[in-house]
């Protein structure tokens, strides 16, 4: 019984992080119809920023106040997002999609090098936060309490986003813009502002994901590309542009991965792709996707 609880925690842990990354990617696509290939690197920047704030600026400190530094990565990623959208992406909305892919792919590579330049080639960790909370007993198993924090952050983010999009005026504006940008604009909505805000929120979520995983996993070069691929699997399953899809997709991936590792260790790598392929086969637009 206790092992089932541990497996459930593990699945939720993975799903929480995936939801934050894929949710941001999906939100940006839903509103702006941009597939941001650099999204994974904003996740990585979130991880590096929090890791350097906790692990380098305050190296050696074990104060509980360090938890206040956790959002540093999310804030930095959001600031970068707020700067990128008007400068790099806005000029391209009227052009064919290939341009956006090329620009965001170029950005992916630039950010990868920027991270290496700023933080160097070696992994940085912020494990003091992970260790600070210690572990608890789940039956005969020992489980890190910090993982429950990550699960809570993912859950709260989902709740907050839902309330934000379906229960606030800004949410209405956001949905209106996403459904018909021209008409929204004609109704007097400042579309440019909506775009900046949506892009910033998306990047904030990616950065937050990086910030919450780094205490237990450390920041390493290349983590952004891996995260991007996983986020794509989630949105392929859930449907690009749908937040519900990102949530359900992340939960499916979290649970299946846990089962895969436990029961079919030999095909751990393949299992997620097989599911994505299966979903594409049955519902090409994903479980919650809108067929164009």
């Amino acid at each position, binding site marked *: 019984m206790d092992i089932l609880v541990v497996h459930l925690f593990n699945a939720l842990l993975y799903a929480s992080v995936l939801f934050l990354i894929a949710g941001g990617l999906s939100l940006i696509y839903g509103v702006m119809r941009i597939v941001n290939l650099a999204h994974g690197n904003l996740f990585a920047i979130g991880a590096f920023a929090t890791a350097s704030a906790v692990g380098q600026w305050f190296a050696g400190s074990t104060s509980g106040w360090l938890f206040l530094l956790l959002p540093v990565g999310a804030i930095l990623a959001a600031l970068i997002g707020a700067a990128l959208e008007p400068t790099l992406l806005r000029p391209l909305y009227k052009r064919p999609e290939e341009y956006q892919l090329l620009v965001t792919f170029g950005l992916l590579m630039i950010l990868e090098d920027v991270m290496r330049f700023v933080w160097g080639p070696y*992994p940085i960790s912020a494990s003091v936060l992970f260790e600070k909370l210690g572990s608890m007993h789940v039956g005969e*198993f020992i489980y890190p309490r910090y993982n429950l924090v990550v699960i809570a952050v993912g859950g709260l983010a989902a709740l907050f986003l839902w309330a934000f999009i379906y229960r606030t005026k800004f949410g209405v504006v956001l949905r209106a813009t996403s459904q018909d940008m021209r008409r929204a604009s004609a109704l007097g909505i400042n579309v440019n502002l909506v775009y900046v805000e949506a892009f910033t929120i998306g990047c904030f979520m990616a950065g937050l994901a990086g910030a919450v995983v780094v205490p*237990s996993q450390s920041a390493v070069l290349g983590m952004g590309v891996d995260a991007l691929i996983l986020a794509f699997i989630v949105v392929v399953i859930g449907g690009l542009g749908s937040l519900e899809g990102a949530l359900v997709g992340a939960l499916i991936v979290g649970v299946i991965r846990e089962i895969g590792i436990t029961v079919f260790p030999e095909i751990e790598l393949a299992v997620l792709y097989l599911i994505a392929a299966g979903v594409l086969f049955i519902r090409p637009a994903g479980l919650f996707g809108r067929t164009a």
Partner: protein
Amino acid sequence: MSSRPTRRDFLSQLGVTTAVAVGGAATGMGVSGIAHAQEKPKGTVPSTPYKIGHMTFFTGAGAVLGEPMYKGNVLAADEINAHGGLLGKRKIEILKADEAAGTDANTKEMRRMKLSEKIDLFMGITSSGNTPALGPVAEELKLLTIFVDGCTDFLFDKAVPNPHYIFRITNIQSADGATCAVGVAQAWPTIKTYAHIHPDYSYGRNCYDHFSVVTKKLLPNAKSVSEAWPKLFATDFTPHITKTIAAKPDLLVTSCWGGDYVALYKQALQHGLFGKMKVATTLGFGSAPQSVGKDHPEGVLSGVHSNYHFTYPAGDRWPLNKTFVEKYKAKWNEYPNFQAEGAYTATYVLKTAIEKANKLTGGWPDDEAIIGQIEGMMYPGPGGYVYFRPDNHQGYKDAITGFSKNVAEYPFPILDPNRIITIPIRNITAPPGWPKGEPTSTYTWIDKTWPQMKA
């Protein structure tokens, strides 16, 4: 079979030795590292730069191995250049290329470096996935090459079975799994069950195979009870740890390295894994030494790619190591790993081969003469002697592993100086002439020729 040996007898037949610390204080024994003074070269030597194309991981998670490799190469080149260069005339110039570009792009870059940049030597490579692709291209281009790592047995077993232009300096991959298993059999002969966590690519598979075959011989009663194959460069090991703990093994064997290993041990700590089982690694301490923290538990069998750890040989017993570590620390403000030692030694192997060839032929020796000198060369590097077998161009040096320990001198754990395990390399690798086998020649050699121990 009454002739079955006991484990202890067989381990001593293998020459497995546990070193005991010798006082490391420098007491003015008058040894001062490699003498760089060289005789005047014969004939006229051009003064054009000698170009080395160095390809390794500068980006991505592999940079924890790639950066030290490059730094070892640069340190050696700077030292040689300070004395005028190769044969006192030709300064070494190093061109960088990023191995993270992917296997396909790497082969193109190798061609470009040879054809456009006119490099004289290709050096580097970290990944086992890249040497089998680049080896045949180097042979085709007639490009003198010293791979530092990319240690798969497959390279010289299958991809380039009769190499002419390519060499490789750090130990062959199968030595890692075998060294780890020998270390386990010596330290913890009573284990009955073990679990695996390996990154799912050629290195992880190779470690799994060779750990298994050696353990089958040395600990016939021990059996594997769990396997997990995380993706290479994964950072979330929570499910793999849960699975391992649930299987209740006596021992965990892992070949995770770099950032993967750091994430694995930190998460394992919070799951209480180290209190529940012994842990053995093949490459846990192989990355830049400072990447592992003092929170790492002591007494873990901590592999260094069966190659080199900067604390061994210690003190004044092997001054080449002492001076190398001092110079590396002075230049890069960090301690070298096995890749740094490999690239540093490779550069000096090249220098030595060129000087020997010059004595024979005069002037600047052609590649054939240099190759002839590297084949069969035994060179004393910081980590010990490395021998280049003429038949397969693989560098062999005695395998080493040890147990993690925290000491006051370093801000990270090192190998316990009192419990270093060394194994003569010829006793754990297939000998010259042994037929090529599946999955490796060393595997079939161990399987067919090692006796099974008494249970």
